[in-house]
């Protein structure tokens, strides 16, 4: 049943403990999402503000994200085993089990960015970062929108995430070409430029994970799987 077509069910579960379990899944996913957004922002500040201590904090912060991943997985498994959820509840739990992996991966990418930032902070800056923070902003925006879509059970916002991914990819190519230019001009920049290319790649992947989350939100709300439209035409 889609809230778009017939209104979101206002009724609560007769079993209050079940209701509380489902609320806990949502709340924990949100907490994890918030933490992940914070990690991306911090890792980028570690780079742009040349703050290696902040980079170290990102690495520490990842432990909490990992713990949340395990907690949410446990909770979802428990609900599957004990409650046999159906319909929208089942879709929430399967969505939870899947997006928790994407959120954890986004956390890992933030750690990767922090690690490259710490390396880069030990050498003189290669150039003024202009497009790179913009790429990070786009990636963060995608994550934020995907999580908003999840909170509000809003497939339209999720669709916007899917449509915006091209912007991220285009900017990635643009920055990559610029960095390639540096490397061709002066081989001494190769190490730093490669680290920056990696950061771009991490941000681009964060965008991909945000897309996965958005796709699952569409599934959660509408019950339709929008992933891999091209693969569907391929005979098995």
């Amino acid at each position: 049943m889609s809230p778009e077509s017939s209104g979101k069910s206002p009724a609560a579960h007769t079993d209050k403990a079940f209701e509380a379990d489902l609320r806990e899944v949502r709340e924990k996913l949100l907490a994890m999402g918030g933490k992940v957004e914070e990690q991306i922002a911090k890792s980028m500040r570690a780079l742009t503000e040349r703050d290696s201590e902040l980079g170290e904090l990102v690495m520490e912060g990842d432990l909490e994200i990992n713990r949340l991943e395990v907690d949410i997985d446990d909770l979802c498994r428990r609900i599957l085993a004990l409650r046999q959820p159906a319909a929208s509840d089942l879709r929430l739990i399967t969505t939870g089990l899947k997006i928790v992996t994407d959120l954890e991966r986004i956390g890992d990418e933030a750690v990767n960015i922090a690690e490259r930032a710490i390396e880069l902070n030990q050498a003189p800056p290669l150039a003024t970062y202009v497009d790179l923070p913009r790429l990070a902003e786009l990636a963060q925006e995608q994550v934020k929108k995907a999580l908003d879509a999840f909170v509000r059970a809003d497939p339209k916002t999720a669709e916007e995430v899917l449509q915006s991914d091209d912007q991220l990819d285009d900017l990635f190519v643009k920055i990559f070409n610029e960095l390639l230019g540096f490397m061709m001009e002066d081989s001494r920049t190769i190490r730093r430029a490669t680290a920056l290319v990696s950061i771009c790649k991490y941000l681009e992947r964060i965008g991909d994970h945000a897309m996965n989350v958005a796709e699952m939100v569409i599934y959660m709300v509408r019950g339709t799987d929008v992933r891999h439209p091209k693969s569907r035409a391929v005979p098995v």
Partner: protein
Amino acid sequence: MNAVAASSAPAPIASAEVPAPAKVEVQDLNVWFGKNNAVKDTSLSVQAHTVLAVIGPSGCGKSTFLRALNRMHDLVPAARVTGKVLVDGQDLYTREVDPVLLRRRVGMVFQRPNPFPTMSIEENVAAGLVLNGIGGNHHELVERSLRKAALWDEVKDRLGHAATSLSGGQQQRLCIARALAIEPEVLLMDEPASALDPIATAKIEELIHELKEHYTIIIVTHSMQQAARVSDHTAFFYIGELVEMGATEQIFTNPKERRTEDYVTGKFG
């Protein structure tokens, strides 16, 4: 060019495009008990060799609906049934249809196992044959029915024992064997496992999977998990009304109606 392409393409499978005629078709069915409209304007169809599960809260009319499918309400003085129930296109509610002959085609298994207490296992299975005046080799039919009901191996050495000496789960399978002995085409089951333990329940559910090869089955159940496990299609009733019917997977993962959603997620109460 187009003609060549068309002729080289594989021929479409006819059955995929033209749905098979329904084994059971219900049209505008209403059941009244006095002024109470227990089943309202219900239409649905069931394909042969499929299992339809009927779910809904107590008092939603699901058992009343099931009983209308073999004219069990004929015996209730205050009951009135309108609409049509067609089996292979023949309306069961026309005068020419003899309810006794009809119940040979549309068998029923009830909630509580109800073997005839004074009869042996074998006599129970053959009871329907005797009552219907069906001749022939009863021993063979009894064995075949008990095998179909997955009970033969457990009772073959004590066919003369009282039916009441069996466990609850065995008694229920005996009742299924009894229903099968008269060789029905449609099998109605009203909560057939609700009085059974999980192992006996699993045996009944396994049996339903096997039986659908030969029969069309309509099962009423309180247990949504059971409906999900055994059926191809599920119909949800609420206050006498068929709210939604669809493929079982769809009903349990993505129902279209809010009331179905609320029921399968446990929001009624």
